[in-house]
């Protein structure tokens, strides 16, 4: 990942809209007086939800709201990679290319995105409707490969299913339900079960721990005796 830098073109001002203002108030109220600074991450998130990214005026506005120095807000915003410091497209697609996803074919997924959108990783389409970002482990390795569109994870994607999602986005249609695209149940194995095959509704059979222990002790004693016996 390259260094994250603030966008060169910054808007002149920023203000939370009425809805966000309301939400911000509720968030700030959660913290005791004098500790409002704790609300900095949720407020940055609100700003990003409103604008798509966190601009410098937004950071300054949040600093005023939380009675912090602007540099403190900037430190937080630049630390967390999920805060975007430059404008992104209306639909922001994040592709995980870390080890698990890569082994399961994230290269195809990236290629699908590039083919469909005509942009590379870290770029925004000219009309500003799409942007593509490569992310480090998205934390859904069991269902690799994975892409994130907004807040939703699409798992078990491949070239074709990624293309379908992007097409749907382009047409402004309802997206397929998020989660596994192959239809598997959450993180359950893709094929047959290989473990936990017992019927979970049946009671667990009783085990004789005393007998097992006796057998273990006996085997141990025998081994010791064998080792101690003079070599014939």
């Amino acid at each position: 990942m390259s260094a994250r830098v603030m966008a060169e073109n910054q808007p002149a001002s920023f203000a939370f809209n009425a809805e966000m203002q309301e939400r911000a108030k509720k968030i700030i109220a959660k913290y005791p007086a004098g500790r409002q600074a704790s609300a900095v991450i949720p407020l940055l998130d609100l700003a990003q939800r409103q604008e798509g990214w966190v601009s410098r005026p937004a950071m300054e506005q949040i600093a005023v709201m939380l009675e912090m120095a602007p540099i403190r807000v900037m430190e937080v915003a630049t630390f967390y990679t999920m805060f975007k410091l430059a404008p992104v497209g209306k639909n922001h697609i994040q592709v995980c290319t870390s080890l698990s996803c890569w082994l399961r074919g994230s290269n195809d997924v990236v290629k699908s995105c590039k083919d469909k959108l005509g942009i590379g990783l870290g770029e925004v389409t000219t009309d500003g409707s799409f942007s593509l970002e490569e992310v480090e482990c998205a934390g859904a390795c069991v269902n690799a490969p994975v892409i994130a569109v907004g807040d939703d994870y699409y798992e078990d994607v491949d070239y074709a299913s990624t293309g379908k999602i992007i097409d749907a986005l382009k047409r402004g249609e309802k997206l397929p339900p998020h989660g596994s695209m192959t239809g598997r149940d959450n993180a359950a194995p893709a094929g047959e079960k290989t473990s936990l095959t017992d019927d979970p509704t049946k009671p667990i059979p009783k085990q004789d721990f005393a007998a097992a222990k006796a057998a273990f002790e006996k085997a141990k004693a025998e081994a010791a005796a064998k080792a101690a016996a003079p070599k014939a």
Partner: protein
Amino acid sequence: MPKLTIDGIQVEVPPNTTILQAAEQIGVEIPRFCYHDRLSIAGNCRMCLVDVEKSPKPVASCAMPVNEGMVVHTKSERANKARGGVMEFLLINHPLDCPICDQGGECDLQDQAMAYGFDRGRFHENKRAVTDKYMGPLVATCMTRCIHCTRCVRFATEVAGVPELGALGRGEDMEITTYLERALSSELSGNVVDLCPVGALTSKPYAFHARPWELRKTESIDVMDAVGTNIRVDARGREVMRVLPRINEDVNEEWLADKSRHACDGLGYQRLDRPYVRRNGKLTAVSWEDAFDAIAVRLRASAGNRIAAIAGDLADCESMTALKDLMAALGSHNIDCRQDGAALDPKVRASYIFNSTIAGIERADAILLVGTDPRREAPVLNARIRKRFKKGGLAVGVIGADTKLTYKAENLGASADVLAKIADGTHPFAQVLKNAKNPMIVVGMAALSRADGNAILAAARQVADTCGLVKDGWNGFNVLHTAAGRVGGLDVGFAPGEGGKDTRGILEAAGKGEIDAVFLLGADEIDTAKLGKAFVIYQGHHGDRGAHRADVILPGAAYTEKDGTYVNTEGRVQEAYRAVFPPGDAREDWTILRALSAVLSKTLPYDNIKQLRARMAKANPVFAGYDKVQPAEWKSFGAAGSISATPFVYPVQNYYMTDPISRASRTMAQCTEEFVLGSKQKTGTHG
């Protein structure tokens, strides 16, 4: 109190002490970069790793509190290996540019790499490079060298009180910067250079000027403000290269204000290096004999009461004693060291010193600032108030215009009459002072140098009495001076004698032609236009306002060029030593006065500085003990009167230029441009 063993030595320390602090107490050295006594603990450099028995991994000793029965090894194989590893990581991204780095020779990283590092690196990839940041005219940056200890960030936030520095980004991309790369707007910004353990932040004016081992180090006292900061003057040959702070817990801890640190280049410009006499309206260089003769001719023609002397803000006690004795021998009582006409009672010491002492600020729980802007008048003292404020439970009230103080302060009103209301108890802040355990009032020169200064002094004293500021073991009546020579001047009695005139009187009389000759001992802050036709003798070190008006100029020595005694605002008598010789024909000030006295046939009774100091100590016992503050007796002072409701005007408008030295300094001129004129001057054509 937990007991623990460090390297086989048993030590008992108070709870909540860290392992590193405990080790320091018994003289066991643990290397560190991010840890600093006076800053909060960050624990991010990992250099202080030690081996603690029963601990699965090495422990960062700066952040680990001691525990009963802990057994610590600081030199075990594991500890050494851990440190070596940390050092190797630090050096991965640190450039090998020591030969061109200003920190070379006094670099913590260099020293500790020698002591704890490996002899070679194993990192063959590219080092990272970081763009340099702008931090103002005093701090040069070379951010590639930064090891991210965050000492500068913590200093700016905690001590200086200007949260403008921060660390942006994370991991390898982390960069220290000021907000939007603006200059660091603190009067203490130079201290980040001292704090930086590597060469990332270095002094801009001193860049590539000298190496530490070339410098001759002299311990001295700063005179740029009245705090009496303990300094070390580093000189090479005849030139003062830089000024650094010395540690004195009672005065400056280990901080130094920017003007005190960086105005030293002014010592090389505008110097008076030979005597001058005004002939046909033009100043002409002459010999000492001719200069003295010119003075003798004029002074012999005048009666004692038609002669006067004013001492300036940078004058040392020795020269003021000599001048006072000389004036007395000439029969004049018209002497004053209060250029601004401050209404200080020279007879009552408690009326003109910072009685609670600077360290006493840490015990205060309510402070009333009257006509003073400590941030600009005494930045180091202001840092002490902030330190107290950070502990919590401190109420600060300000009478005077709002200034950007570095702590929360309640503005009680800009005009002086609020003080009268507090004095008679009708103002709510009077109750705050009464309820406080150690209340304190700080009266500044903006309040005392007004025409109604005496009435304000009386009102302040009344506040002290009615609000319980003075009690057993605590005297919360404080005067904050702006001139380093002021308390010393009052202590040696450089104030009008019986029937004598003070500064206002002298200027008035000179204007009317009632005074023939005025002796200015480095007095540059008076309105020289008011001197009328008087014959002006100026003794000083810079060709400043006083010298421009002078008829005879006697070249004296600046504070780095003479052994001198200074008394700071709290009445602490401190000794400064000569670091370099004065330029050209200039001489130490008291010796000039001694030589002049012989020419005037009023030879002063001392031939060396020892005899002069014995004379000072005999006249005022405070001079018998250096580095001490003698508590002053609480007596009555001030004269009740009406206080006008006009607002205070702070004496320090441009912090960076307050005296002849800083006015001659190029660095201070740059600072003035950056911080004082700043936005005012920049127009569209300034790029």
